[in-house]
């Protein structure tokens, strides 16, 4: 499989650490989080395999392309619109989470609208550029930040203050019925593959997806989930861990680089994660805009020969997110992301049925030709 395929999966996984996933998982630490994580790993690997195997049959074709070829308009138009909204919300939740983090830790004096606008300004770029450019941006930013983020993770694992007894204690909650909300939260990590709906446009050469790829992805997800869940427990214990609103931010604040330029790892961590969050939003909003382009022909809207149409979705995105940034509070944000997780983990397995339908219709179309 092309390395770009791993990037889109990886970003969703790494970006979850600052989102609400660790909060939800740790909230149910004594109520079935661990078994939910195990089940999510298995089902998640299956869903990645099914999605990847489906899309490599149609190199270079996006899901809206396929839907248009095989299904009626009353079916695909609402579906694509719903997907556009879902992707927009996924990006917006990352944006709001990160805006809250910045105002809490980095720039408490700055007005919240200005923070979110300055993030949007860089992200909105993704709505205009082509799909392959988005992937190149991802590669460059990942190359710069990922090694340092992995270094911080290693630092956390080798820190003398991480108490493995806490980790063992938490791991012994394994024999419980899996918790649904924890399951959906950890399942969210695997849904980066859904970005293939649009990004498959880039993979024009036929790809291979065999056991080697499956095992690689499985190992990456297991280590990401393990890090997400157990490192905060090692630093903060299990009792009252649900009191920590941003478990990973507080964990990075518990790390100390004695001889580094900045002793407090928190700031380094926040800056690197700003990059990851930027990529995550870039992907989500890019996909969302691409969906909308299939539904509406924005190029038609012109003012004195100047193409105004392509500015409509980004403007809408900006307006809606700046509105939400101001009205939402932390509790709403967690409820909203929890709700999004639940919808997605029902919605995406259901998409497999659509895949089967498309496959059959495409075969039929080929045969009649």
């Amino acid at each position, binding site marked *: 499989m092309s390395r770009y395929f791993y990037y889109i999966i990886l970003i969703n996984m790494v970006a979850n650490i600052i989102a609400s996933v660790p909060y939800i998982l740790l909230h149910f630490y004594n109520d079935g989080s661990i078994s939910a994580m195990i089940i999510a790993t298995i089902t998640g690997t299956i869903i990645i395999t099914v999605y990847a195997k489906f899309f490599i049959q149609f190199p270079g074709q996006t899901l809206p392309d396929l839907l248009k070829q095989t299904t009626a308009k009353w079916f695909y138009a609402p579906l694509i619109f719903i997907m556009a909204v879902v992707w927009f919300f996924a990006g917006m939740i990352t944006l709001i989470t990160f805006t809250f983090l910045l105002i809490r*830790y980095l720039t408490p004096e700055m007005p919240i609208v200005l923070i979110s606008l300055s993030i949007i300004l860089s992200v909105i770029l993704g709505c205009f550029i082509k799909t392959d450019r988005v992937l190149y941006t991802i590669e460059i930013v990942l190359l710069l930040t990922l090694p340092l983020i992995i270094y911080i993770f290693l630092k956390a694992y080798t820190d*003398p203050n991480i108490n493995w007894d806490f980790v*063992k204690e938490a791991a012994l909650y394994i024999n419980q019925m899996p918790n649904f909300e924890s399951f959906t939260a950890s399942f969210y990590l695997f849904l980066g593959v859904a970005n293939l709906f649009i990004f498959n446009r880039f993979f024009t050469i036929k790809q291979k997806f065999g056991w080697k790829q499956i095992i690689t992805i499985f190992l990456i997800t297991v280590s990401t989930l393990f890090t997400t869940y157990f490192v905060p427990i090692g630093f903060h214990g299990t009792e009252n861990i649900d009191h920590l609103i941003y478990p990973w931010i507080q964990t990075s604040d518990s790390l100390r680089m004695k001889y580094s330029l900045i002793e407090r790892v928190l700031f380094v961590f926040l800056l690197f994660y700003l990059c990851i969050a930027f990529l995550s939003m870039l992907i989500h909003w890019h996909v969302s805009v691409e969906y909308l382009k299939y539904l509406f022909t924005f190029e038609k809207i012109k003012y004195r020969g100047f193409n105004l149409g392509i500015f409509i979705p980004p403007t809408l995105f900006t307006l809606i997110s700046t509105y939400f940034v101001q009205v939402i509070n932390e509790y709403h944000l967690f409820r909203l992301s929890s709700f999004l997780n639940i919808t997605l983990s029902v919605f995406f397995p259901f998409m497999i049925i659509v895949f089967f339908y498309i496959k059959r219709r495409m075969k039929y179309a080929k045969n009649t030709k």
Partner: protein
Amino acid sequence: MQKIQSKLLIIFSILFFLSGCEEFKDIDKDVFVSMIGIDHSDDNEKPFKVTLKLFVPTSSFRQKPEANYTYLVETAETISEAIRILETHIDKELDFGHLKLIVLGEELVKENKNKEVLDFLLRRPDIQLISWVTVGRPNAEEIVTMVPKGETAAYPSLYNYFDGNGTESPYIVTMFLFDYRRRMMENGLDPIIPIVEISENESTFTVNKSIVLKNRKTPYELDPLNTFIFNSLSMNVKIADIEVKQGNEHFVAKIDTIKAKNKVKKQGNNKFSLDVNVELIGYIVESQNALNSRDLPKYSKLLEKEAKENLESFFHELQSEGLDPIGFGLKYKAQTFHHKRMSIEEWNETYKNAEVNIKVTASLKSTGSIQ
């Protein structure tokens, strides 16, 4: 051409966003807090007395190499209120981002106000979780306001006791705020805080005792020897001096490697034993009698005996008081499924009556430069 012009126009208009620095405060409008001392005041209405130590900005090191501080003191009903009042006592914004040391007054710890103080320290996002928690004796204010001789500007000498860069004595317990938090929350791991005192000649600090909070509430003081044993058993301390006084021999062993392993072992039904394995490697630095290299195994045996006696009295003290700073309760939890764990009270009883198996293996490698 026109296209390029319009593009340039857009780029230049973006530059207007860059001028938006008016939302930030200049660094010279901030004043950095280096230590916070929280005391219990006698006033019932205003139980908290907050002392802040502020760095006074100096224009250059050469002009003023010695330390220079300002102090702010206020009593109020809550800590935040005290800080709010203190903000009106100074012309600059108080910045807690560089706060690295928290001194709790001894009275405050005895009055059991730890929950409220911890809540304040954790809730403020600008206070580092890697700041050190200490207990000030006789009170926090005296510790915070004291400047020992030879202190350099911008780095209070009290920091050196804890940061692992200056002195690395095995008698100093380094307790980070996040560690303190998890110990305050967890049942099987008791909080332990170092005590900072002013030494008799009033020119330096002494840090060699510690306070364990029994049941996370009642303070119990550990003397220097027990503090040292605790440190070497569970805080990754590697260097120590052990005085051996057995029979005719009287020597001091310098230990450069300490490996300690603590375990909880199940012995039949609801009976547990605490297994402590300690490995000491080092050499002899001082002796009353002449030593013989051939007898090194014998000296090692003596050291083992001495260490074992000390450890036994340490564990006897811990068990009779029901203190668990090493975290045997947590170790028990870490090896028992959650639905089979006994209740906290049951475990406390079990812990008090548990058998302690101490095994010390010492190997002295040398008698120093002379025999």
